[in-house]
């Protein structure tokens, strides 16, 4: 089984990298990009029976820094 963890900076946390991407898109002529937020996706290949609660524990302890980052988990 697999889990996919999406990690994003929380709302209100300044994302200078996203801002640089937004600026670059504007330079390329893409108008109307009001904002860009950059995050990361972590795919986990897990032993059968691993629970979402365990993945949540992984996020809390290592995968995300919950001071500034939020995460969502997709189990499949």
């Amino acid at each position, binding site marked *: 089984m697999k889990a996919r963890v999406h990690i994003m900076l929380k709302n209100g*946390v*300044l994302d*200078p*990298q996203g801002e*640089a991407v937004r600026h670059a898109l504007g330079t390329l002529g893409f108008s109307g990009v009001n904002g860009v937020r950059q995050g990361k996706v972590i795919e986990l290949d897990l032993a059968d029976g691993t629970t979402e609660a365990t993945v949540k524990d992984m996020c809390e*302890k*290592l*995968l995300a*820094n919950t*001071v*500034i980052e939020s995460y969502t988990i997709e189990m499949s």
Partner: protein
Amino acid sequence: MKAAVIVFPGSNCDRDLAEGFRQAGFEVSMVWHKDTDLPKGMDVIGIPGGFSFGDYLRCGAIAAQSPICRAVVDYAHKGGHVLGFCNGFQVLCETGLLPGVLMRNAGLKFVCRQQALRVETADSPFTNAYSKGSEIMVPIAHHDGNFSADADLVKRLRGEDRVAFSYVDNPNGSTGDIAGILSENRRVLGMMPHPERACEPTHGGTDGQGVFKSLTEVLALA
């Protein structure tokens, strides 16, 4: 006096840090990240600068979960002295020993230069050899040194006199120009600048020696 310097894969200021301690009169043990225990009788633990574990995931995140860091956290909780410079500061924030987060520099660029710092408090085991309000020159070299904290945390750090150093000309966007902070018991220091790289005239300056000297004064009294 005895100091331990933790070495992670990717640490690159570990020997500089050891030299800083030695010059101040410490006997230094280098401790590998896979060790589970610190050597006995240490007076201070140093977490060096560098790029532990290649900065994978987040700077300092993987180092903070290494076996030796559990021992460092226990040591700090028992009242031991711990300091972390640059990547060491990032590691200390990731362990939770210090609050806040080091994010990508506001200008997105790696900054490497001599930096003026203001000593914000002389009331700590790491800053008592300086006078409050004085300015020192110490190198900085980092990509993720933008200390980020919410208004409440900044207010608390200032109210409790826990800002050790601030930038005179903010190089990275750090909240409140904060360059280095102390733990609640004042025995853990984290800072982005590199005092260990300003310890002898050939470094271009010796303003960093004060951090090590301060420790020797406190430990001599203990």
